[in-house]
């Protein structure tokens, strides 16, 4: 084993593989930091080249990209509440409030130490589990997976925080979203309405952008300040690094979670960060501090999402079973260059396996160094005025949304989720459960069906299932026990934070959500029961919970009648007007893209926004140039997007003009 390790180190630490690894790391960091444009695209771009390499350089390049795909995506999560990719969504929950407190640098310091520690831990686990690699992967069948999904969903309860019922309803909506598209068991196109767009299902990134990024940007536009509500940023970078060592035990635990999510192909790698976050909230002291800018809320997801990549290598090299599309492509590269994943990876090809481990370790260190170097510069963004941040972020969001499938529907879907996200924030709904449920919902239904179809109900008494079930119960009961011991009420307190008007609005919103659920169930009656059962369950449960929540609201309303302080009408009107303005800007941006095309719109939008809100011409022109440059560099050069002719050009018969324009560069 150590001979193989020696060979691997000797082969990887050569100028050529190291150079390729560095290219991979730089590229990966760049793509990861761009919201919506993940490293998958980078892998697709380098693949034709990678398959012509020798095995060791190929490993260096591919894993250089893969290992650190979750490091730089922290930047947008912390700075502008935009998920850099699916792996950094949980980082937003505490990362963005930290930026608001002027602690962006501290968040970065913590994230960029936690990331490599997790990543290296993943590599060590991979190394240590080599002898049991194959039995490990085979130990989990559909019933065990089902239980793991349920365990994951039990995290929803934790993520719901102070609004448990709304958290559950949000999760139900999330599962409903996950049912959109082709149903694997029946082939029915659920909620596709005879069109093609929804047959693919709804892209997770559209949900993430809509429910996290836009509501925060609207809040910023209403507040009209910079993201950081402080004067300076302080020197938090070192403090953040120290935080990681103070919470070293949390880092280890979350790395383990990350590795496990990675090892289990099909669990959905994009939830590793949420699992880790929920675990932190559940087990750490003072859980009420999470969500308000607690550094532990950044450390937990960041230490898990890089660890995941090491874990994900296990099924890929043990059996050639990739856990994600990225790993499926890496598998193709490995096979093409003569590495054959399977039992030989532990015998003849052991040096290759070792080389992968070495690359994981080295690239994690490199990428973290790179990110730390850039952190101070990026952190300054949080001091920029809102008239710079808001248009930049909205443009980034719209382009990230468009990058999902490159059709207009992507932008419309994103607008829909923005509205949903805004109301969820306004009425104090917990948003993470929705996102987690979107990922796990499909798996819940799928594995439940497979378990039952294959084993009948006997899967319920399988030892593996019982063991995980015990863990689920333990997870659910432990926090209650702990609270009881401390003499707090077991159910937690329903903290009253909503004003009277908000509460009335929430009732209307709840009725709307319930109406959607009932309508969904009605549509479901057209399908066979196998496809519609889950919809009926969701609708039934959702309506019951909705009624309970409305009942709760009504009780509070009656109890507080006449006791509430009068609302500041002037302030409320202003907030409403500013919110409406923000939505108009967003809709204008989308409509502009549709009418005039991306290039002209992003430039005009930046100038208009900045000028209208009193920004100087200089900023306006710089941002417009940056936005245009971004579109040209990323969409035209890198992705070679074929733009549909904007409506206006088409109506005026000016297709040729638009074509000439996009062919300019």
């Amino acid at each position, binding site marked *: 084993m150590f001979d193989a390790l020696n060979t691997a180190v000797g082969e990887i630490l050569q100028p050529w593989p190291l150079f390729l690894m560095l290219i991979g790391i730089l590229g990966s960091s760049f793509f990861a930091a761009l919201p919506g444009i993940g490293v*998958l695209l980078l*892998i*697709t*771009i380098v*693949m*034709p080249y990678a*398959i*012509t390499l020798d095995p060791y350089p190929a490993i260096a390049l591919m894993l250089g990209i893969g290992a650190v795909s979750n490091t730089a995506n922290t930047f947008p999560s912390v700075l502008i509440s935009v998920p850099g990719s699916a792996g950094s969504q949980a980082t937003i929950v505490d990362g963005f409030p930290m930026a608001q407190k002027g602690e962006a640098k501290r968040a970065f310091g913590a994230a960029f130490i936690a990331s490599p520690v997790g990543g290296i831990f993943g590599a060590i686990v991979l190394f240590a589990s080599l002898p049991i690699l194959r039995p490990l*992967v*085979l130990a989990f*069948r*559909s019933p065990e997976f089902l239980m793991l999904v349920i365990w994951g969903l039990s995290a929803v309860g934790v993520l719901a925080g102070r609004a448990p019922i709304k958290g559950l309803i949000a999760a139900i909506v999330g599962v409903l979203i996950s049912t959109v*598209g*082709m*149903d*694997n*068991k*029946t*082939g*029915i*196109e659920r909620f*596709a309405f*005879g*069109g*093609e*767009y*929804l*047959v*693919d*299902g709804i892209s997770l990134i559209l949900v993430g952008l809509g429910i996290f990024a836009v509501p925060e940007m609207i809040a910023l536009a209403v507040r009209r300040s910079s993201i950081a509500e402080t004067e300076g940023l302080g020197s938090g970078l070192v403090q953040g690094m120290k935080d990681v060592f103070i919470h070293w035990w949390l880092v280890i635990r979350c790395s383990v979670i990350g590795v496990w999510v990675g090892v289990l*192909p*099909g669990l959905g790698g994009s939830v590793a960060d949420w699992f880790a976050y929920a675990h932190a909230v559940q087990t750490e002291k003072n859980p009420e501090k999470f969500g308000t800018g607690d550094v532990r809320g950044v450390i937990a997801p960041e230490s898990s999402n890089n660890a995941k990549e090491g874990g994900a290598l296990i*099924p890929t090299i043990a*059996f*050639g*079973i*990739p856990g994600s*599309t990225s790993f*499926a*492509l890496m598998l*193709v590269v490995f*096979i*093409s260059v003569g590495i*054959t*994943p*399977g*039992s030989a990876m532990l015998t003849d090809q052991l040096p290759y396996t070792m080389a992968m481990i070495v690359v994981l370790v080295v690239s994690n260190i490199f990428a973290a160094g790179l990110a730390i170097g850039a952190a101070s510069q990026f952190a300054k963004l949080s001091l920029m005025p809102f008239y710079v941040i808001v248009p930049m972020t909205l443009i980034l969001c719209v382009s990230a949304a468009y990058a999902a*499938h*490159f*059709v207009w529907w992507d932008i419309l879907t994103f607008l829909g989720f923005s509205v949903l996200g805004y109301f969820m924030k306004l009425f104090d709904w917990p948003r993470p459960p929705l996102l987690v449920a979107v990922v796990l919902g499909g798996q819940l239904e*799928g594995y439940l*069906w*497979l378990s039952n*179809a*294959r084993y009948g109900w006997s899967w319920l008494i399988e030892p593996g299932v019982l063991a995980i079930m015990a863990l689920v119960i333990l997870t659910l009961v432990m926090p209650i026990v702990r609270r009881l011991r401390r003499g707090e009420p077991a159910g937690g307190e329903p903290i009253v934070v909503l004003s009277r008007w908000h509460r009335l609005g929430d009732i209307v919103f709840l009725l709307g959500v319930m109406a959607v659920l009932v309508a969904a169930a009605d549509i479901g009656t057209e399908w066979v029961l196998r496809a519609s059962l889950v919809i009926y369950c969701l609708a039934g449960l959702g309506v019951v919970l909705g009624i309970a929540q409305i009942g709760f609201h009504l009780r509070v309303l009656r109890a507080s009648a006449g006791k509430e302080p009068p609302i500041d009408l002037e302030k409320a009107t202003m907030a409403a007007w500013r919110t409406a303005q923000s939505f108009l800007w967003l809709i204008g941006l989308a409509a502009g893209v549709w009418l005039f095309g991306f290039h002209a719109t992003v430039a005009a939008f930046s100038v208009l926004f900045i000028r209208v809100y009193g920004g100087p011409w200089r900023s306006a022109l710089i941002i417009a140039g940056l936005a245009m440059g971004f579109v040209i560099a990323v969409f035209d050069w890198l992705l*070679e*997007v*074929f733009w549909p002719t904007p409506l206006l050009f088409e109506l005026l018969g000016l297709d040729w003009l638009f*074509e000439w324009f996009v*062919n300019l560069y």
Partner: protein
Amino acid sequence: MRTQSHTLRFAFATAVAFGTAVAASPASAEVSYKGKRVQLIVASGAGGGTDRIGRLVAQYMEKYLPGKPTIVVKNMGSGGGKIRAANYLMNKVKPDGLTFMQSDNTVIQPGTLRRRSARYDPRKFHFIGSLNRGGSILFIRKDAVKRLKDKSAKPVIVAAISGTRSWQAMPMWGAEFFGWNVRWIPGYRGSGSMNKAIRQGEIDVFATNNAYIIDELVKDGVVELLVQDGQQMGGKVVRRPTYKSVPTLTEMLNKKGIPKISWQGYRQMAGPSAVDKWMGMAPGTPKAHVEAYRKAYKASVNDPAFLKVARKQFSKEIFHIPGSEVAAMVNEIHNAPPEAIDYAEGLKKKYGLAAFKKKKKKKKKKKDS
């Protein structure tokens, strides 16, 4: 393509700048794409097999199409994107020779056409050619072999994604005519999850054309190869060269002799996989364009450099089917009487797989197309 296209664009610009534009060769006198931007629509998400094959071919098409145009690749979603792309090719693409498509066999299955979202007729497409990676091989766990023919034993479990894969014809006709003792469990996500499930013993049977998966399963002693789809060469179904010992279902059915409707039903369901990864153009594209593309495609996929990479990436046995032959195959599949399709869909329903009845609103379909 990517860097190459930039180099080409640059080279072209330089050529024009120095006034040394090369005269078109006589062969391409009719059509030339000089200085044009040609669009390749890939009917899958970035990174999948269809995408990679399309992008690779496109690199060579740039070289072989008359006038050496720049080819821009655009992906159209994944999964359902195949149907979206086929609808787009049918109804939206201008037949000006500046757009072509890379897709796969799913969209030419008659069953797929019965989906609500399908608004196209593959017989109207102009096929440029196709690359076949070798037909699917059906295999069974060694410990389940005995149960396959023994109706008194516990049924052998066949995994399915949603019943849309054409290889499902093998176990279906096996159950119908060779008395196979099988039961289906649809709902798996793809080859990866089925690969794991067969190793775990959760399922007993599935099929793939991926030689790597097949060979690893055989090497590890997990499975035995049962039967294959085979591949169509010159209008005849033959065994895959590297799996010569595995019989094709066509051979078995011929030997057995089955009713005509059932035979037609099998052909229309299994036929599409013999086409595999095809390229095509919009209905109404002028013949000169189609011929130019067919010629360039043939030259591309026979380029030694292309073959070297394609054999590494996709299959050692990858082979070219000319556009005219693809068109003939698609016609054969779709000229099957509706009863034959009903027969196959009926079997799917009988065995618990996703099946589609004939569309009710026929008028609307006509209007759309």
